[in-house]
């Protein structure tokens, strides 16, 4: 039986990778993937705790997160495509029409 701390450590590493990717990358697709990475890191800690505490609520939460992630992915990709069509770029810094 692998101790829960290992799962948590892995989850923390994945989450940090997601954050770093979000901060560093300029391609909106990669940023999007980083967000998915963070969500799944959280999912991992949820299921780890669920098995550790023998409680189902953690696993239930994971399903909720997955649903939200799927919805977010579909909406987000739709926005990206719409933006790309008008601005012809994937760099979010260039999407600055509303800035002063």
């Amino acid at each position, binding site marked *: 039986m692998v101790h829960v701390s290992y799962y948590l450590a892995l989850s923390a590493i994945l989450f940090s990778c997601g*954050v770093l990717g*979000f*901060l*560093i990358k300029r391609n909106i697709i990669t940023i999007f993937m980083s967000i998915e990475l963070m969500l799944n890191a959280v999912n991992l800690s949820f299921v780890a705790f669920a098995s550790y505490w023998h409680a189902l609520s953690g696993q239930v939460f994971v399903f909720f997160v997955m649903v939200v992630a799927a919805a977010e992915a579909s909406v987000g990709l739709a926005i990206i495509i719409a933006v790309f069509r008008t601005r012809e770029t994937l760099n*979010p810094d260039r999407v600055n029409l509303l*800035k*002063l």
Partner: protein
Amino acid sequence: MQNWHLWLVPLLPLVGCAINGLLGRRFSHGVIKAIALGFPGLSMVWAWYIALSAQLPYIEDHFTWIRAGNFSVDFAFQLDQLSLVMMLVVTTVGFLIHIYATGYMEHEGGYYRFFSYLNLFMFFMLMLVLADNYLMMFVGWEGVGLASYLLIGFFFLRDSAAAAGKKAFIVNRIGDFSFLIALFLLIQHFGTLKYTEVFEKISHLPAETTGIGLLTIIGLCMLGGATGKSAQIPLYVWLPDAMEGPTPVSALIHAATMVTAGVYMVCRSHAVFDRAPTALMVVAIIGTLTAFFAATIAVTQHDIKRVLAYSTVSQLGYMFAAAGVAAYSAAMFHLMTHAFFKALLFLAAGSVIHGLSGEQDMRKMGGLRKDLPWTFWTMTMATLAISGMPFFSGFFSKDMILFNTFTSPFGSKWFWGILLFTAFLTAFYMFRQWFLTFFGEFRGKPAEVHGGHHEHQGQEKHGHHGHAHESPMVMVLPLAALAILSVVGGLVGVPGHDSFGKFLAPVFSQYSEGLPAAAVSGGETAAEAPAGAEHAAPATHHEDESLEYTLMGMAICTFLLGVGLAWYLYVKRPDLPGKIAGNLRGLHHAVENKYFVDEFYGAVIVQPLIKGSTFILWKTIDAALIDGTVNETAHAAGDVSNQFRKMQSGNMRSYAGWVALGAAAVIVFMVWMRGAR
């Protein structure tokens, strides 16, 4: 008890004030006149009706005005012998002056405004005298100050008039502050301001013969208020300047009624002063000194109204001196006769000014007795009355004051001596004015003297014939009525059977349990008044009488001396006054400039106040400290915001970074808290 509707007396003039003040702009002069005269006239008629039929003392309680804890003030009127005298003087003299003013102000702008103010004054003055508690008196007290301010500054386009109005208002504020302190002390120690209750409580206190106790302090604070309102040393400086107002105003407010409010207040509070001999002495000293100094200044003035102004200050000094020797009925007697003859003097002076199209300088008058016969004869009556011509009103009242200062246990020969000398000065300066105005040759420029100088800018329409013209009938009639009053008004107080004193005795012998009898009633009546009766043996009564006739004889001598000197200097040898003034240049210069009191106050009080306000209060505290704090706070907020603004860069990744940092900070904080537990 029958309801006499005493409230109508003060309220009727207020109605007149409201109608004229709110709607008068559209009315013709006739309508304004009818309203301005009608309401005070009704008020006067009602006052006389009540006076002749009501049972005294009469208290009319309308409603509770203020209630706070155990303290409450009623809106109530009180009519006793004292307020009755005041009420009749105010309504009667006031009404006569209103009549006069309708003629005098005919050619001035703001006709409706003038009468609105004048009626307002009547309202407040009647509130003052009819109040049954000190707070309502204070309302009237402040109100007459307001009306006085408005009317002094009536020709507000003239800078000097506006300044004089402000000066009167501010100087009065100083006195009012002192009066207010007295009221606070009364509330603190007696828990009420109602006359009857306050005096009832005070009457159980012993007289403060030694040291300074509560009653002495209250008395001195009241005196402070009275010096402001009644123009006594040290606050008299506003009254001469108040002559900037139209002459009827000077007659009504600054001679006959308002300025006597202080005397009325001291008399009303006699229960306090009876038990505070120190305060009484201060009243007498202030009164005597004021009488003397103001009279000396009056001798050197050239402006006909200023002579009368200083004369008013001086006569008010007499009243205070009388009140200060506990001869309250003598003070009230002089108040009444003074209201008659001084109002008449002012109105007659106004008639002279009117006749000369605004000329006020006596050096440019002279020989007017043929041109202004009515004015001349009425003014002669008033001059004789104020100077103390035997059997004129002023003679009896002044004589009673002199007698009381000599014989009262609170009096002294010093007071008597100074006041006697002042009586000589009074006769002198009054006859100086009389001779300068009406005798000799006319010294003004003939015909068109049209002073842009004064109030009569509108005079041009007034057809000129020769250099002076008699006033219209509407102005002459009040003069005649007041002249009759000035002549016979003193007969109510003929020595021997002083019916005026007897009439007032119920008021002034009240609340006097446990006091030495002599302190009780207005001197002259001491022998007759119930409280003093058992103490005054018949023998002393006779001695008193012979003493009184001796003193009276001396007063007549001073009168003759004063008149004779004035005649010699201004009719027989008109060149002499200039020479005398030349020989006594320093003294004359000082007196002519009113002893430089205005300059002294200016240098010692006003200038430091202005400087202090400018440099300390304004520039340091307000501009630097308060504004500085506010501005610096705003600047600091701006600077900090400028820094924080940079967080909102619009860069998505930096926002994400801040979110990540914040989350990390929260995690660190939670872990750290966990460890701390």
